[in-house]
């Protein structure tokens, strides 16, 4: 048996038998019940952040919805916490130039060319219990491809998340994800004047809706 496999098994054994020892030695590695996004209005609305082990959907309708800015903020916040983010980029549209190298070092970027590729790779990632946070970005994918996604797919992926503990944020141009635990709706409208502004001063408006984890139907506007 390879030495690294032995260590993995030993680590799992100790974590099960002596959870307090793990707590004492590596408190920063403890996984919270919700993953904060770093955007205050969203974290407050969702009770701390993206609910773990479940889907969250960010509906970003129309033009200038701020979804790209949201991804950048989420990556920066994740990198600040020393964690990693996996971006399944459905239309290969991430703007590398706007991100600092230190933030990019915390990114696993999966560059897809179609919705089918994005869903297939998301399925593979969710079967891997190493992946904590996946952003599935379908904002620029063609509407006819999105319409072909069977509703049962989301339930199947949900079961994978429950088994392996992953968290998935899906960015869509319209409500799409059946059974999402939380939904964020962008009310942001960026225009040419925002091109002159610093990203920190942009007026990003998001509306959150917690569905299953907290009070069902509770709605807050930020």
């Amino acid at each position, binding site marked *: 048996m390879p030495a690294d496999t032995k260590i*993995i098994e030993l680590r799992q054994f100790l974590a099960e038998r002596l959870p307090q020892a793990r707590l004492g030695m590596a408190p920063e590695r403890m996984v919270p019940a919700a993953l904060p996004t770093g955007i205050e209005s969203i974290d407050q609305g969702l009770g701390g952040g993206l609910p773990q082990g479940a889907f969250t959907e960010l509906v970003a309708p129309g033009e200038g919805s701020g979804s790209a800015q949201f991804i950048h903020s989420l990556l920066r916040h994740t990198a*600040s916490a020393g964690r990693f983010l996996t971006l399944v980029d459905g239309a290969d549209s991430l703007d590398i130039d*706007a991100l*600092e*190298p230190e933030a990019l070092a915390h990114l696993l970027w999966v*560059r897809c060319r179609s919705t089918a590729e994005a869903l297939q790779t998301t399925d593979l*990632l969710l079967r891997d219990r*190493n992946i904590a946070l996946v952003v599935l970005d379908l*904002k620029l994918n063609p509407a006819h491809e999105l319409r072909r996604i069977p509703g049962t797919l989301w339930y199947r992926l949900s079961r994978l998340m429950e088994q392996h503990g992953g968290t998935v944020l899906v960015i869509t141009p319209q409500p799409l994800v059946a059974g999402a635990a939380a939904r964020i709706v962008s009310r942001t409208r960026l225009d040419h004047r925002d091109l002159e502004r610093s*990203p920190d001063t942009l007026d990003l408006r998001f509306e959150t809706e917690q569905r299953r984890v907290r009070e069902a139907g509770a709605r807050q506007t930020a």
Partner: protein
Amino acid sequence: MYAVIHLPQFPLQAALRLAPELWEQPVALVDPARSTPVVLEMTPPARDAGVERGQTATQALARCTGVRVRHRALAQETATTDVLLQCAYGFSPHLESTAPGLCTLDLRGLSRLQPPEPNALHAWAQELQSSLSAQGLRSHIGFATTPNLARHAAQSGSAVHVVTDAARFVASLPLAALEPSSDTARILTGWGLRTVGELLALDPAELTDRLGLEALGLLAAASTRNTRPLKTIRPPEVWTESWDFEDPVETLEPLLFLLRRFTDSLCARLALAGRAAERVDLSLRLESGNRLERQLNVPEPSRDAAVLLRLLNTHLDTVRSESAVVGLQLTLETTVPAQRQFGLFETTLKDPRQFQETLGRIAAILGSDRVGTPVKLHQHGTDAFRLVPPEFEGVAPLSQPRPALQAPGLRRLRPAPVATVESVDGRPSSIQCPMAQGRLVVTLGPWRTSGRWWETGTWQREEWDATTLRGQVLRLVRQPDGWTVDAVLD
């Protein structure tokens, strides 16, 4: 002390190395290069059915209607020699490729064989034989104090033969072991000589008077003391397996069946050489004459056959060919495996092996240039980056978030769609492209950049930010060959 590895029926072993189940069936090997192809070797069931060396294929079929006639493949024999040398190199660094199917090893310096006790030699030989057996090769190994004696011992028919009494062993050898010329062999047989011992009993001077210089060569070959320096070589670092199908293959299962054998064989050889695969080159030869070739990068160098096979399986799941497959070749590009110290508690991955496998499967679906961690390139211009394998150990957290650009992030369009742009007074005024049509109400710019004007690859671009009537903000780029939409604000 020397050891010689002998692969009996070498051409047949080479032909059946990747199909060992054929040893249980009647198979005859013929050489198509000869004007009259005759049987060179045959499997035991074929021999039992009456097939003999020197028969034509028709005669062999007449003796045994079920015999499968296979052609001798020199490429397979070369590959088998490589396999033999690579396996032997894992046991001794001093080796000679003596002849096809014969490899001589100098055992001096091997501490576990000093002194060369018969039990230790047998144990060592069995390890070597099981290593060769894993490659589908059957071997005989001989040990002696000279290379020639060791060769005779290996060719004596025993699986392992340690020569302890050299004089007695040589005396018992048949004369044919000294490989005399046909004329000399006929003379010696006429004298009633059958063994080397009977030859050595004759007076050397009188023997030379009658047989000439060849007698000296025979006596030297029968010597128990004459040794020779080995022409030592390093085994070629070629990690290739190939196969030509008898019938065209249209489904995935036969390919995977063979690829499993390829990966098992190659990974066992990599383990002996202390190397790991970092890239897999797969080539499918089609019935139409074309080839389907694909290079698959292994995210983390590995010599785990299951990992490589899953990588290939994932890729082949997506392959659609114009015609059936008639040949297959797998080549591994290798490197020294990375050594990593795993901490007990401090890791960000629960199971690094599973993660590498996941990356490999994604790379097989999308291509290895489409998954990884982006690293910006140190050059001017936009959207310049490369992807590297993700590293989860020792990456410092982002201390002070500061956007690389003092502007909101855009969404890049890759590849950038071509646009038809009309200008008024040098400013874009309307656009026609798949994602936007009509008048442009606001235009900001131009921002002009250029680079590499001092060498080939010169570029220059003019950027404009334009808003359509629908409120869509586009980044338009004008280059010498026309307009494109590089990004949108979202």
